[in-house]
């Protein structure tokens, strides 16, 4: 499969540059926060970066229209994998949501997000009305609902939330009437109450109550938030210096190289570090979101928007979570946190944006 020269010219190198910049800053802080651990996480992350770039190459190589039309098969495949790994996890306790490929493990729920983007794009590309109607809403809910259900009972609340963000994004784009918004609010309230009483695990409930009162549970989930806030706050304006953060180096900070890596940045490079990372993120998200105008067709707009939404949502949740403004849900910081599955799915999402953007001229 060869690339047309015109296609290569249309690739958004700026976006790729911003993503790679974040990725390598991430590797730096993975090193800082885990160099004292027996496994070399930063090297593993570099391997994952290589795999992710290869995945992007594959995604970009195929016209997104083909991917969209093919998406329904991917959808059934991923639902089958989710259900299968869940059933397997029931048999072998503790393996849960991981599928092993040799040395490396992959979370199928992460890849499900990308498949969902394609499926929803296909669904809404057909829909040209000004506002969303009931049949397509129901169909979208059904399509998203099956994998969502499988992810929720794993349980992986973070990924489930991201799923909802993609779906919600699609709905917003398709147009929501006031009546529908109201209906969603009522339904989510009911689901919330029922879920609180019957579905949420104790530790998940605790995370929510801890958010309202972090001092209440200083040894449990409040401990993580408190340690993270201490790390960030004690960074001050310029931070304690690379690999000199006492909170992260002395292991007070939980999940330093994964979900709480932004706390390490805040501690070691202070507010200036936070400002720079947020600025890079803002530029990248702007580049992503504003690409919707460059899409050739409706499916393209949906793909770019949902992919941007996926990354923006995870980013915001993570940045709010580690400073105690959102419950601890296990959402990593895209491109920066250590973790192969998350890295691949975010790179693939980014690849989809590139794909749509480079094929904006119809006759290629």
């Amino acid at each position: 499969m060869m690339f047309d020269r015109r296609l290569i010219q249309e690739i958004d190198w700026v976006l790729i540059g911003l993503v790679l910049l974040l990725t390598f800053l991430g590797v730096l802080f993975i090193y800082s926060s885990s160099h004292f651990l027996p496994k070399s996480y930063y090297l593993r992350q570099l391997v994952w970066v290589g795999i992710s770039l290869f995945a992007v190459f594959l995604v970009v190589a195929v016209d997104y229209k083909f991917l969209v039309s093919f998406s329904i098969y991917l959808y059934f495949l991923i639902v089958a994998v989710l259900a299968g790994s869940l059933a397997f996890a029931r048999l072998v306790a503790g393996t849960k949501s991981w599928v092993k490929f040799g040395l490396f493990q992959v979370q199928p729920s992460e890849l499900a997000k990308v498949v969902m983007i394609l499926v929803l794009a296909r669904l809404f590309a057909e829909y040209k009305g000004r506002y969303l109607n009931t049949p397509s809403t129901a169909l979208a809910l059904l399509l998203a609902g099956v994998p969502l259900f499988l992810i929720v009972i794993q349980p992986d609340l973070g990924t489930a939330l991201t799923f909802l963000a993609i779906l919600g994004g699609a709905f917003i784009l398709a147009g929501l009437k006031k009546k529908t918004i109201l209906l969603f609010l009522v339904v989510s309230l009911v689901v919330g109450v029922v879920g609180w009483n019957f579905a949420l695990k104790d530790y998940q409930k605790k995370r929510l109550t801890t958010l309202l009162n972090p001092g209440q549970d200083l040894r449990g989930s409040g401990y993580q938030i408190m340690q993270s806030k201490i790390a960030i706050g004690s960074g001050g304006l310029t931070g304690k210096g690379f690999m000199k953060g006492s909170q992260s180096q002395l292991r007070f900070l939980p999940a330093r190289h994964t979900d709480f890596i932004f706390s390490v940045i805040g501690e070691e490079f202070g507010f200036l570090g936070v400002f720079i990372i947020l600025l890079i993120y803002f530029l990248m998200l702007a580049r992503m979101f504003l690409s919707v105008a460059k899409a050739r067709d409706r499916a393209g707009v949906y793909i770019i928007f949902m992919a941007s939404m996926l990354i923006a949502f995870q980013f915001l949740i993570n940045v709010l979570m580690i400073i105690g403004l959102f419950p601890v849900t296990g959402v990593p910081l895209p491109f920066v946190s250590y973790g192969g599955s998350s890295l691949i799915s975010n790179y693939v999402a980014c690849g989809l944006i590139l794909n749509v953007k480079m094929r904006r001229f119809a006759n290629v």
Partner: protein
Amino acid sequence: MPGDKIYEDLTIIVRRANAVFRAVAILVLLCLCYYWKVQILDYKKYWGLAEANRTRTRVVSAPRGLVRDRNGELLADNQASFKVSLIRDNVKNAAASYPAISKLLGISEGELRSRIERYKNLPPFEPVIIKDGLAPEEIAPIEGRRLEFPELEVAAEPKRFYPKKTTAAHILGYLQERSSEEIRDNPGRGARLGDMGGRAGIERQYDDRLTGTDGAILEIVDSLGRKRSEQVTQDPAPGQEIHLTIDARLQARAEELLGEKEGAIVALDPSTGEILAMASSPRFDPNRFITRFTPEEWVQFINDPASPLENRAARGLYSPGSIFKIVMALTGLDLGYVTDQTTVYCNGSIQIYGTSRACWFAPGHGSMNLVNAIKNSCNIYFYTLGRQMGIDTIAKGAEELGLGRKTGLDIPGEKEGLVPSSEWKMKALKTPWFPGETISVAIGQGQLQVTPLQIAALTAMVANRGTRIVPHLVLDPTNPKTTSPPDAAALSPFKRSTFESVIEGMWRSVNDHGTGQGARVEGLNACGKTGSTQLVSRERAKMLARAGKPIKTHSWFTGFAPRVNPRIVVTVLIEYGGGGGAVAGPVAGQMFSLWKDIYKK
């Protein structure tokens, strides 16, 4: 336009997408504001929390100040006390390790396991103390097998150690753990629970001087509390050294002379008031308070009817018996009730206020002047003198000579004793004074109560021909070799010549076949007075009854040497010892003799 159909109209959804992006942008901005608040506005707070997180202060105990005798001999030292702790993290195989450890340390496996069980909530890297108060020699076999027992940790801490064991125990006092109230009320001292504080004697009186300043080590710890590095922020500063006036040789001899007998010996330098020896028997070993008593030992100790903790020299209350005749003689002479020439005929008994009073020497002493009355301790002479003086004159004289109030000894707990007077009796017993009681007081019986230390101070005053001293145990810290002699204001109102007459009597008592001849030392012009008392104070009588002891005579001797320029005062009291001349006198003689051997060469 023909191209119209190629591109759909996507304006609405693009507009919606842009609106969502604007919302995202606003959220990012708000986020940045919150980070600004946490990192810039609340920086101090979180910085403090991070510091508190990573640092832990470990206290390094400071050794207590040393206590030495006047010649630099150590009386209270410090010794490394070792404690052995178990780190559960390092236990590889509990089933094999615990029996081996219990064998090594000589504690039962059950006890070991119950100790570990008690601290099971501590993190496993935290050492659990399994045995403490170990001496260096007990540690050697454990240190020798270090490699076999990586789970054991040995740490040293300075602990008080009294090398001479029971010697001078009542002077030094003892230590006990400070109470939580004491720690709360003295926040400046920085004491912690488990710290030892002085409870009696020098240890208590000079607790602040002896207590050192604990050092501190700042430890950098990780989230599990494991030590990563440490930094000494303050070295422990040992407490100040204290030099006592005590001469350990005299002290040891005094204690040896008392032996198993209950009683007290005080030896002091009359020119300065420096106490050279102050022994009380029975004794205790202050080391036992450091290594902790077993419960049975403690109960036995506390219930011992002989109360070994009591410092009889400063706290024991006794009737002075014939020793009081010194007071009678001084007061009577000084106020002119008698002169040196006044004589009283002793035929062995006398009728006073309708009752017959006997002299201790039944055949009678014959014609007695003051000097001979003191030499022979003639009761009849002093009965007569007492009747002339009356109780209130006697009381005034006794108070003038330092009885009935504290001598000013520099350790706590000294007793005042009692000098009865008509006024006192009216106040305390609500009955008027009977003249017959005066006759008992005249020979040192009745309600009179004195401590051996008061008698020693009184004797020093006689030896000094009227100059009062304050008996004390600590040498001047600025000039630890001497203490300044008492100032002129300490002079008593008695005439100097009065003292010479009394001293002549005391000299004869010892050197001219008087009652005190047992204290005679060849080549040392000692002067002294004996005493024997049948009466015991009410509290002592109760104690005696509890102990089931027969109420026998207390034996007294007090004296000084040499007659001119006196250098040493010795006061001996032996409970139930018998006659003062027979028992206490020779003991005092031994003290004089040792003093002569040490200081007269």
